[in-house]
């Protein structure tokens, strides 16, 4: 794994115009994607993670405004790229897998045609037979059995997991180097989830892909991510390697998320996070999570915390890290679990 950064998002801020005012959906998000690695962005719905990757794909809704920031890819800023430039990146360089494979496939177009349509964009002169052959190969490579017959079927004839495999095949059709997965397992049955995750890991290895993985589920992240960005209220509140996030979570929100995650060993009562995310038309003055934080400090309500660097790879935006702050007690569930994991290792 070389350490070349292939995509870099810097200080990205995005707002949406609504009847009630500007919704500040993304506020100064920065993260890097290095070649061959999987970066996860974790957060609740509405935390701005999907908006961020829509910005990367250049498919933001019409009422979205990019207030500031840059998305550097291949030596240029995608925010400033023209629609025509984007055409050469979208699909061919960056592929996207959707949350809901049911609504992501055109219900009245044959599966095969939806794949060959993508193939044809890379190679407009490809013959019908070749396109079909390639598509069938693709379908097989993502684990669709009996691909030749299923080529002529419609989405409604596929199960949820199979549909997601089709969506993956479409994303891979043009051989992108970056694959963005937007909650790829959320809409699927639990039994299917693991298989799709395995498939994504597998194709990532095979095709040497770099992956951005969006999810709200810390359990899913544990299986796939090299590095993790935790997002809350449009801001990345903690970033670090998977080990750092799971074993040394520094931000109260990350801790709360982890404490709410079920696993096989935990016998204590899981914790829930009280309250709801703030109204992003009027983002709170200080730390956006303060309202829901059981150990909130006075300064949390007054001043937005900067990022504190814990190690070269680990940063968190919380006043709890300040030397003068009282030591943040991890929830008991989490403390026990981390101890157990460390023991096993």
């Amino acid at each position: 794994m070389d350490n070349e950064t292939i995509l870099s998002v810097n200080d990205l801020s995005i707002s949406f115009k609504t009847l009630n005012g500007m919704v500040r959906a993304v506020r100064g998000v920065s993260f890097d994607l290095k070649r061959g690695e999987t970066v996860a962005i974790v957060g609740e719905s509405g935390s701005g993670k999907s908006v961020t990757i829509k910005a990367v794909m250049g498919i933001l809704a019409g009422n979205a405004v990019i207030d500031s920031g840059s998305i550097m890819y291949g030596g240029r800023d995608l925010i400033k790229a023209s629609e025509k430039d984007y055409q050469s990146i979208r699909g061919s360089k960056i592929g996207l897998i959707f949350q809901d494979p049911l609504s992501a496939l055109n219900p009245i177009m044959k599966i095969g045609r939806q794949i060959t349509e993508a193939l044809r964009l890379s190679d407009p002169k490809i013959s019908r037979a070749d396109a079909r052959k390639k598509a069938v190969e693709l379908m097989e490579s993502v684990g669709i059995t009996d691909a030749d017959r299923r080529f002529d079927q419609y989405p409604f004839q596929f199960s949820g997991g199979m549909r997601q495999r089709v969506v993956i095949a479409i994303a891979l059709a043009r051989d992108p180097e970056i694959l963005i997965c937007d909650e790829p397992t959320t809409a699927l049955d639990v039994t299917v989830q693991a298989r799709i995750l395995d498939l994504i890991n597998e194709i990532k290895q095979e095709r040497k892909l770099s992956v951005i993985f969006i999810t709200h589920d810390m359990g899913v992240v544990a299986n796939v991510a090299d590095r993790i960005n935790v997002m809350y209220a449009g801001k990345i509140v903690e970033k670090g390697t998977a080990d750092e996030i799971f074993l040394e979570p520094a931000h109260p929100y990350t801790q709360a998320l982890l404490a709410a995650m079920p696993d096989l060993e935990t016998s204590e009562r899981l914790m829930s996070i009280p309250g709801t995310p703030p109204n992003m038309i009027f983002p709170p003055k200080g730390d956006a999570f303060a309202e829901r934080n059981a150990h909130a400090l006075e300064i949390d309500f007054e001043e937005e915390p900067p990022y504190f660097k814990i190690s070269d790879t680990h940063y968190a935006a919380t006043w709890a890290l300040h030397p003068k702050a009282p030591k943040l007690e991890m929830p008991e569930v989490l403390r026990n679990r981390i101890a157990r994991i460390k023991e096993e290792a």
Partner: protein
Amino acid sequence: MGKYVLKRVGLMVLSLFIIISVAFFALRLIPGGPYDDDPDLAPEAQAALIARMNLDKPLPVQYVLFIKGILMENNWGASLKLRPGISAFDIIKERVPATMLLNIMSLLISLPLGILAGTLAALYKSKWPDALISVLVILCISVPSFIFATLLQYFPAYRWELFPLLFNATGNTAARLKSMILPVMALSFGPIATVCRYLRGELIETLSSEYMLLARTKGLKRAQAIARHAFRNSCVPLANIIIPMFTNIMGGSLVVETLFSVPGIGTLIVDSINTRDYTVTMAALLFYSFISVMTILIVDLSYGLIDPRIRLGAKGNE
């Protein structure tokens, strides 16, 4: 698919059978027998006519003969007053071309214009073209076709003398076409608006669908994605409204034909009602029902062809 077709066809046959039965009983129920109030008719002639109409036989026999007559011998009854003795079927046959010409022209104009306006409105949602089109749509949907017909007849035809007042059945093709412009226009405002409103709604929904996003992330251009995915998917449900639309046009043409003196089925129905020539009325109504039922059948079947979920027998709406 076979089962679907069979079911549809069966339903339509049943529908036709019922409407024929209703027509039979309605004819017998209309107050005053068909020849009661006709002083010109000699008693012998009246008896002969009654015998020919099988009115002297018991009701069940009459009923069977009536249905047999329509199905086997194309005998829809004979005209009583308009052209006494002439077969109603023949009278209708003469009137079909004008009506069909009018209706089909209106449909052919309405569909593309409605689709165009609906697409424009959807693509410029909440901008001025959308607002303008919405106002026109409300106007065209609300104001009945016979008001449009009256308006067109009074201003462009009577006051400005741009078009002939009435349909020109005898002139050359150019004159005939020119005289058809106003009636076709009057018939088309409503359907254009209906298509436009429906397509706008569908298109806006598909434009914001996930599969449009997927199409974009594949790398399709916006125009390509709209044409290949959104547009086609939005046009499929149009089949839903073509049935009521076509029957609406046909209904509207009843009055519009009369206003412009188009020698079609509509004028025939109105004339036959006014002269109390009920066999002709009923035959013409039967004809309308046949057309309506056939339209429903055709649209149902073609809908099955277009939408794979119906063709392949998937249950429910996914």
